């Protein structure tokens, strides 16, 4: 018997919660026990996801020809994969080849998500071997003013929804004198159809830590908070472990990377309130209070967390900062169109065949996203509606599929890009029911401060229900428009103010869905 030690074969299998949700853990078990029975030494590195969720569980094997992928792998495929010699990259119906050559990834421009799904999320060695901390080192070398200028020139706009220029926000905080300033990461990713923040926390958490550290240096803040959600227990676990590892290795705390700069970071978890994604409600929540929206001014940049100047940015905004600092403002700004510079991680979800995360330069059309990249519905039926930008975003019908993915182009059509969610519905959807849900969601999640939002949404749901029942449809449609106008103009924040968009877009583009029972009742 040959007793010479054989170096184990390295496999990569995602630990992303979406992979777990379709059975990744069972695949890992099946592969581990099969290899043990064969006496074949293997090591399995758990990664984030590459974002092609219809291919999960995606198993990659390190071979001389690169990382060869197989997917979607189910536990019952495992014996066949071993028989096919997949540990050496053998042929098998599930063999996908190298993921770098996969058209779905090849078509992307991965700047923010360059590492996600590839590296061990908790390995600093992996992180630094793939360009990690290059941005921070450069930031330390050029100093606060030049960092702010670089971020401004990159054209980066906030990825949380409002699209506000990140550099401008940072400059305001940098210019405000105070004994303590804060960096707050908004990871309260509540929009249906979005999972980009979650994927970074699970797949590349050091990138966020680096981005927040750079923000701290830029504005003179020594303390940061990440506000995540209780719906993300797995992401929170990985994020906490990454923070601990960064402290252990001198990348957080006093004297980060021997620079003399202090940056402390803590993860906090919300408690199931959508409105806490609104920045001032989030700050209230971090302070231990009810998540009620604050009137502006004062801006958080002047009086934010605990009354101190605060940068509050979406997680993706912050996680994009390292690559901007590492590669330069021009490199980032060269991608995109108009005033939408750089790339956007578009999250394609719902009833779609190829759902996942697709990072690309702004400018791709909605039709290309849904029909091309997404490959149509999962059910194979025609697309009827696409909701963009979460629960406060409009429903787009296929006749608007020529809309380019760009902040201004979407706004012109009463839509929003928001945090990049795109949720596809097939022709079985009842748009009146979707309008009712939009009102109901607003009623459930309202912070209660403004009457039009708190009461209007409940009234709105009742009115839609009357329409759905075929009762005085014309009069109730007028009433619905009035209610929406009141909510739009009488609400302090976008929860009450934007709920009319999904509602009115449903009414405008799918009038037949609001008159179905009417017609039936008249017969």
């Amino acid at each position: 018997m040959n007793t010479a030690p054989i170096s184990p074969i390295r496999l990569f299998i995602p630990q992303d919660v979406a992979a777990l949700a379709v059975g990744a853990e069972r695949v890992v078990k099946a592969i581990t026990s099969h290899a043990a029975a064969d006496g074949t030494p293997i090591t399995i590195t758990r990664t984030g996801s590459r974002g092609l969720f219809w291919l999960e569980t995606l198993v990659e094997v390190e071979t001389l020809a690169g990382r060869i992928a197989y997917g979607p792998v189910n536990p019952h495929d495992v014996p066949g994969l071993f028989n096919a010699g997949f540990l050496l990259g053998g042929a098998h119906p599930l063999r996908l080849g190298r993921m770098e050559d996969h058209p779905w990834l090849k078509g992307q421009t991965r700047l923010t998500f360059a590492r996600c799904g590839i590296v061990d999320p908790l390995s600093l060695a992996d992180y630094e071997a793939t360009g990690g901390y290059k941005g921070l080192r450069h930031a330390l070398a050029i100093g606060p003013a030049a960092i702010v200028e670089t971020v401004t020139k990159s054209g980066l706009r906030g990825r949380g929804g409002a699209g506000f220029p990140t550099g401008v926000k940072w400059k305001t905080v940098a210019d405000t004198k105070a004994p303590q300033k804060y960096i707050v990461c908004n990871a309260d990713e509540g929009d249906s159809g979005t999972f980009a923040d979650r994927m970074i926390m699970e797949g590349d958490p050091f990138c966020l830590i680096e981005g927040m550290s750079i923000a701290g240096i830029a504005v003179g803040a020594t303390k940061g908070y990440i506000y995540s959600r209780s719906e993300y227990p797995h992401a929170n676990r990985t994020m906490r472990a990454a923070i601990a590892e960064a402290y252990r290795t001198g990348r957080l705390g006093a004297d980060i990377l021997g620079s003399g700069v202090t940056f402390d970071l803590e993860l906090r978890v919300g408690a199931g309130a959508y409105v806490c994604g609104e920045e001032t409600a989030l700050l209230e929540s971090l302070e231990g209070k009810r998540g009620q929206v604050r009137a502006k001014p004062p801006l958080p940049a002047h009086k934010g967390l605990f009354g101190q100047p605060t940068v509050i940015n979406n997680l993706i905004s912050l996680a994009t900062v390292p690559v901007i600092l590492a590669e330069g403002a021009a490199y980032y700004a060269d991608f995109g169109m108009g005033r939408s510079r750089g790339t956007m991680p578009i999250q394609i979800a719902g009833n779609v065949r190829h759902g996942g995360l697709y990072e690309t330069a702004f400018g791709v059309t909605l039709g290309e996203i849904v029909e091309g990249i997404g490959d149509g519905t999962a059910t194979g039926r025609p697309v009827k509606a696409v909701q963009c930008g979460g629960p406060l975003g409009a429903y787009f019908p296929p006749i608007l599929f020529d809309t380019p993915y760009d902040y201004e182009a979407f706004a012109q059509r009463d839509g929003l890009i928001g945090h990049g969610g795109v949720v596809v519905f097939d022709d079985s959807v009842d748009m009146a029911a979707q309008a009712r849900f939009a009102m109901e969601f607003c009623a459930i999640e309202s912070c209660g401060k403004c009457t039009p939002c708190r009461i209007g949404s409940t009234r709105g749901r009742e009115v839609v229900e009357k329409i759905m029942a075929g009762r005085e449809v014309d009069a109730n449609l007028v009433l619905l428009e009035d209610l929406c106008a009141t909510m739009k103009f009488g609400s302090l924040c976008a929860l009450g103010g934007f709920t009319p968009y999904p509602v009115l877009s449903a009414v405008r583009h799918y009038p037949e869905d609001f008159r179905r029972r009417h017609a039936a009742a008249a017969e």
Partner: protein
Amino acid sequence: MPSASHRPTWDPFRAEAIIADHAQMPGALLPILHALQEEFGHVPEPAVPLLADALNLSRAEVHGVITFYHDFRHDPSGRHVVKLCRAEACQSMKGEHTASHLLRRLGIDWGGTTPDGSVTVEPVYCLGLCATAPAALVDGEPHGRLTPESLAGIVEEARRA
């Protein structure tokens, strides 16, 4: 995630210790409420005066915070908790149909617990599993691409365990 049957009943000393562990943090109330719920499966009413004392708040303020957030339970949950997504991406994949199937089968409504105390079903709005919809967390473990049948199987398996 520990099942509720193994959770300790109300213990004021344990609660005091949890509160004391966190009381020095800035904005300590939410972390403490999470820790109490983790320990007891809900936020027991007798914790309110303890919290008010420790954090220098009125009882009404503490109560106001607890009731504002959907996560915090006033009553113990069942031994198993199903957090089922009701948001749009899950709706697009017939999530509401799958959900009503489960609720009918268990004979409960949203937020309810089966009479034998084994299962609680709670609504959530997005788990970030929108590309593998409809989705749920069952005792903290994620499940995607649910059908009425697969969800029933997962819940039965949890109940038997």
